[in-house]
């Protein structure tokens, strides 16, 4: 029966307390092992993924080119095989890993901070802003250094506008999840209307180029774009990882979070900026890749639970894994370079439905 002893706490020699402590520790270790298995999964999938492509190069040849080039960085690429492996497949693979990791991290953070299982990195209108930026760059041939760089820069800048609007609104009205989502939706409709108008008035060739941009693809991945994208995703993900205890508290409601010392309005704005910058960096280089940001965190929840301290790093790995595997599928079963955005949704949707049916625990 409940009876307090004098003094601060019941002795930790209590058998039940020891059992709970060891159960907790062992459950955490199991989850750490799952994270290590996911890291191994990303590595194995990457090793295999690099050898898959429409241009036939053997497994050993691919990896001897990789090691050879790593040992002699800066050497010119002489053969076609070398160029295919080092200039096409490698940046594509790494772009996939970085993009998947970034989108899944952003998605998991967005779901917790918005308290909404349907939230994803694009919830606040990032994708519509990016599309609009890219479409005006393509339609009006805006070039910054080059045409491609112009498209990327404009996509990046416009994808941050919805977040800027929400931050501006938060000075007048409390930044609740509903306010942020509705404000994001409003901005999204405005951007979509403007994008559709431009698409209507431009010629069919420009329209096709603009449409192509919006479909997420890893083909645009290059050694030039990768460091920028990777730097933003790594820094952003690290920042989100540092804020997991706030995400956990916000998951229990704004009022509760405030009573454990979380300045909910400010933290939500900071997280919105971080998530927006991560997503904008990915979208502006790859186009709109759907599914990963929404579902990778949910798949991860099934194995890891909803404690953001583990969920965020595991989602990051799950995003990378899903992307690499989907890219392998895209390259294995199609002769044309099918955009990854189509494959992630087409393969991932049924897989997720299967997991929803199979999972026994109440997660959502």
């Amino acid at each position: 029966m409940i009876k307090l002893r004098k003094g601060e706490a019941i002795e930790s020699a209590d058998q039940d307390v020891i059992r709970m402590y060891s159960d907790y520790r062992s459950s955490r270790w199991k989850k750490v092992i799952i994270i290590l298995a996911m890291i191994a999964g990303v590595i194995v999938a990457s090793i295999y993924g690099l050898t898959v492509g429409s241009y036939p190069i053997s497994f050993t040849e691919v990896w001897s080119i990789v090691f050879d080039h790593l040992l002699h960085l800066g050497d010119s690429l002489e053969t076609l095989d070398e160029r295919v492996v080092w200039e096409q497949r490698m940046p594509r693979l790494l772009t996939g890993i970085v993009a998947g990791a970034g989108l899944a991290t952003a998605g998991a953070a967005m779901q917790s901070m918005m308290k909404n299982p349907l939230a994803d990195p694009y919830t606040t209108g990032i994708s519509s802003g990016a599309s609009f930026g890219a479409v005006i760059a393509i339609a009006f041939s805006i070039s910054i250094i080059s045409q491609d760089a112009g498209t990327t820069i404009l996509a990046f800048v416009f994808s941050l506008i919805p977040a800027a609007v929400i931050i501006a609104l938060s000075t007048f009205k409390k930044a609740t999840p509903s306010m942020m989502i509705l404000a994001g939706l409003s901005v999204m409709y405005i951007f979509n209307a403007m994008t559709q108008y431009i698409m209507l008035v431009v010629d069919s060739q420009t329209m096709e180029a603009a449409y192509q941009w919006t479909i997420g693809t890893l083909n645009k991945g290059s050694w030039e774009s990768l460091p920028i994208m990777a730097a933003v995703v790594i820094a952003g993900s690290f920042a989100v990882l540092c804020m997991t205890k706030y995400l956990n508290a916000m998951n229990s409601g704004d009022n509760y979070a405030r009573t454990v010392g979380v300045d909910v309005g400010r933290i939500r704005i900071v997280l919105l900026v971080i998530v927006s910058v991560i997503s904008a960096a990915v979208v502006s280089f790859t186009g709109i890749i759907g599914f990963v940001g929404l579902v990778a965190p949910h798949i991860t929840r099934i194995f890891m639970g909803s404690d953001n301290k583990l969920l965020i790093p595991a989602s990051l790995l799950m995003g990378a894994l899903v992307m690499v595997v989907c890219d392998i599928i895209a390259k294995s079963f199609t002769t044309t370079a099918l955009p990854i955005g189509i494959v992630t949704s087409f393969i991932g949707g049924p897989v997720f439905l299967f997991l929803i049916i199979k999972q026994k625990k109440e997660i959502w």
Partner: protein
Amino acid sequence: MTEITLNKLCFSYDPAIPILQDIDLVIDKPELICILGANGAGKSTLMHCMNKLATPTSGDVLLDGRNLKEFHLKDLAKIISFVPHQEDTTFSMSVLDTVLMGRIPHSGSLRTSDDIRIAAENIKLLEMQDFAMHNFDELSAGQHQKVMIARSLTQEPRVMLLDEPTANLDVKYQMLVMRLLRDVAKIKGITVITICHDLNVTAMYADRVVMLYNKGIYADGTAAEVLTKENIQLLYGIQCEIMEIQGRPHIALLDGDELDSHIGDIYKSLQSSNE
């Protein structure tokens, strides 16, 4: 021991409709204080004013003489914990992970062994040890309440605020929780302020009862002083008899015509058709 002083506190959402007016209250002893009042009397609002969830329209809340406005949220969280009326979790975590949230004001990004021990001890205190690794969503409403109280204790506060902690609990656990809160106040020296609707549980365990009526404090004192026939009739508009059992008042509520004024026309027509 922490002293809470409410000084001419007023609160309203709309200036034309005040909810609380000129509330003066001093809480200077670590005891179990129950706030009573009819629905809409402003009990939760009063509680929210004590932990910065609501900002008073005028007047001050002082914590050991220092104005609440001067407290940073994190510093306040080390002093005051809060048990909401209902948990508002979107993505359910394990019971132990949920209780560990109480350590947020004290810990950094990583959980220490001490954090886990303190959380486990409080789970044991609420007799939830067999559910520690269960998902929060798998528990009953009463068990949710116990987890939230354990989480609040894990915050190691000097003041605990609880918004109807016995709602959803069966009679045994209502008594158990109230006794626990009384003992926590006495042994740990924590000031426990709770909103309660059950008059008898309040009478049985409360060290002090504060009765809200007509936007202000109508009565303040021991259960015997506050829970009188007249006060209950005024507050709720119902008849009752007061007895003394185990040295404390026991309230027997009586069904009477007073309730008719609150009964809607549809129900009245149902009554007459039955006759």
